[in-house]
């Protein structure tokens, strides 16, 4: 049996915010015409959620779906269910011009939480992360320091980040530096 490991094995850092690597997360990339009824039906069945609007993400107890680009969706689910869900999705999309791929092991997921979580991420991304501009349900692909990342807000004090697994160590590093003790900015009037 394989001993499956996420990129950083639940590494964590405590500073002005708590940074955690979240371990194995099931992820399926789905590309195609997201307006097509066939694809909508297959995607919502696979994620167990409704379709997300532009730059939005929707979640349920067992999964989630995020809008990645005009022709790309990201389906989130428990790691153990990826194979089954992908199979069902591929079957449902038979004959449709679309692509569904299991990318769970190609990515890493981080959680940044605490009253200063938004500040920590805002130090690294050219995005307005104020609670008014970026709230739970929003989803944003952007640049985190030097690498690509996608961000969404679980609640006002919790942000989640997806990056490529190959740069997980780098992302954990920059997040840890940005969350060093004593580095509060107070711009978003945290708390």
């Amino acid at each position, binding site marked *: 049996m394989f001993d499956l490991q996420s990129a950083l094995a639940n590494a964590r850092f405590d500073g002005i915010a708590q940074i955690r690597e979240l371990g194995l997360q099931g992820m399926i990339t789905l590309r195609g015409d997201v307006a097509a009824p066939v694809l909508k039906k297959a995607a919502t069945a696979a994620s167990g959620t409704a379709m997300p609007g*532009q*730059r939005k993400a929707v979640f349920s107890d067992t999964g989630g779906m995020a809008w*990645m*680009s*005009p022709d*790309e969706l990201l389906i989130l689910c428990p790691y153990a269910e990826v194979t089954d869900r992908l199979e069902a999705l591929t079957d449902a999309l038979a004959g449709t011009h679309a692509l569904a791929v299991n990318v769970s092991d190609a990515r890493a997921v981080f959680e940044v939480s605490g009253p200063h979580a938004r500040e920590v991420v805002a130090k690294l991304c*050219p995005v307005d992360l104020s609670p008014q501009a970026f709230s739970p349900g929003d989803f*944003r*692909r*952007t*640049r985190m320091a030097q690498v*690509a990342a996608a961000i969404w807000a679980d609640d006002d004090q919790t942000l989640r980040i997806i990056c490529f697994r190959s740069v997980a160590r780098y992302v954990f590093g920059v997040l840890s530096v940005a969350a060093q003790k004593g580095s509060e900015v107070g711009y978003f009037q945290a708390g």
Partner: protein
Amino acid sequence: MLILECPCCGVLADETELTAGGEAHLKRFGPESSDDEFEGYLFRRENPRGVHFERWRHSHGCGKWFHAARNTVTLEVYGTYSAQTTEPPEAIRQKISGVAPGWKWRLFK
């Protein structure tokens, strides 16, 4: 700092989130074109002091290409538009004419 709105995903993207793709609306000349045409396609570029049209890619975002019309002197951005076109949309041309009357860029004015 240049901020462009990506017409594909609607994000107000910072320059560092984008990749510059050079001059817009190039017409490709390949096999069977004359040497002059091919040289022009490969090497001759506008280098205007003023209105300019460029290609950009939202590389750290949705990954799509788009066009931008902007001014190289004032850094004003006149607008962004789809990459799937061979000329700037009328609305953007009118907007430029309002700010910079008499502008001219390659075949467009």
